[in-house]
């Protein structure tokens, strides 16, 4: 069986490289509050530390996001997952996959890593209960072969948590 993430391993196009360099520069000058980019020389995979916002269920907790960029970023969405242990949240599976429409069907090339991070943090912050999605066990089992969340046919959860 071929690795499903093989497609995302293709080298970045020139447009993608150029844009990511610009995003990285902007991030260094003006990082989104609550996030820290862990510096590596790999432009195609960013690891980002997220701090739960104060006054929310996740305050004082730290998580790690892994962002992988496809060859034709930003015409294609990046793959964004939490590196387990993922936050306990009704839209976040225990394997780190995140059910958030902008990462899949509702992606737009005008979005950036920074704006995606802010959306994820706002999703965490608005949560009123710490629990896994109902179908967590089934979903994670289905992903055991290493399937990318981008290949999931998401049925998006309600906006309200």
């Amino acid at each position, binding site marked *: 069986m071929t690795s499903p993430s093989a497609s995302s391993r293709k080298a970045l196009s020139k447009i993608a490289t*150029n844009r990511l360099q610009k995003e990285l520069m902007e991030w260094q000058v003006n990082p989104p509050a609550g996030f820290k980019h862990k510096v590596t020389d790999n432009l195609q995979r960013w690891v980002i530390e997220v701090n739960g916002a104060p006054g929310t269920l996740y305050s004082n907790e730290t998580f790690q996001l892994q962002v992988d960029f496809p060859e034709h970023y*930003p015409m294609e969405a990046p793959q964004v997952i939490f590196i387990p242990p993922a936050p306990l949240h009704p839209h976040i599976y225990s394997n780190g996959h995140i059910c958030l429409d902008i990462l899949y069907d509702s992606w*737009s090339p005008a979005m950036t890593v920074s704006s995606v991070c802010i959306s994820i943090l706002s999703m965490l912050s608005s949560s009123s209960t710490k629990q896994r999605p109902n179908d967590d066990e089934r979903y994670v089992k289905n992903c055991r072969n290493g399937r990318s969340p981008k290949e999931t046919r998401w049925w998006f959860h309600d906006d309200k948590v």
Partner: protein
Amino acid sequence: MAKGVSSAAVQAEQLKQDGNLYFKKNRLGAAIDAYTEAITLCPDVPVYWTNRALCHRKRNDWARVEEDCLKAVQLDHKSVKGHYMLGLALLQREKYTEGIKSLERALDHGRGAHPNSYMVEEIWQELAKAKYQEWERDSTKRSWELQNLKESCEIALREKHGHEDAADSTSQQLADLKLVFAKAAEADIPTEVPDYLCCKITLDIFRDPVITPSGLTYERAVILDHLEKVGKFDPITRETLFPSQLVQNLAIKEAVGAFLEKHGWAYKMD
């Protein structure tokens, strides 16, 4: 049997095909011979000249590239390849201003025909490189001139006050002078391009800006790519958007031109 004129045209066309085939196999000498024969038969077909120029270019024979391209743009003043290679040839022999002009013409005609073709991208790259090098030369000269002038001014100031006990006012004036010269050099110091001159998708300075009915401006080639691959919507407002609704944003294009005129460093490509 075909008659004289048309048979020459047919023969020349066949020779061009042969030339193209040789060119693909990198047999440049044979390709040049074929195109030359085609030109002899039908000297008024610009493509024969630009195809031969392409061979000369591969051989770095820039004098011949220039000759053939001059002929091609004479025959067809809209020849993108003609203006493009003519520009490269002129730059080769350090005719910077003329070379840049030719590249600009190539870009204008190229965009008119195929706004997001690889040719347009390639021409832009060459033009940006030439413009950046022009800026490097000019700004080095400017900074050298300013430095000289500044030193002369400083000497003059010190001499004027000489041995008097006006040390305070002298040092104040020297500090002011420093500020004035720093201000004069500002435009040549690379900083950031203002956001309003950058596409929200490429995050890069606009080249060929187009505006959507939502009032947002994007880089033409990139928004076309988005409409084709992602969906028929404005990337920021998500309102429905079709390629036919895009209109060139001339005001932003002018603003970009004015900015680049003053800040040539912004031509730097990574």
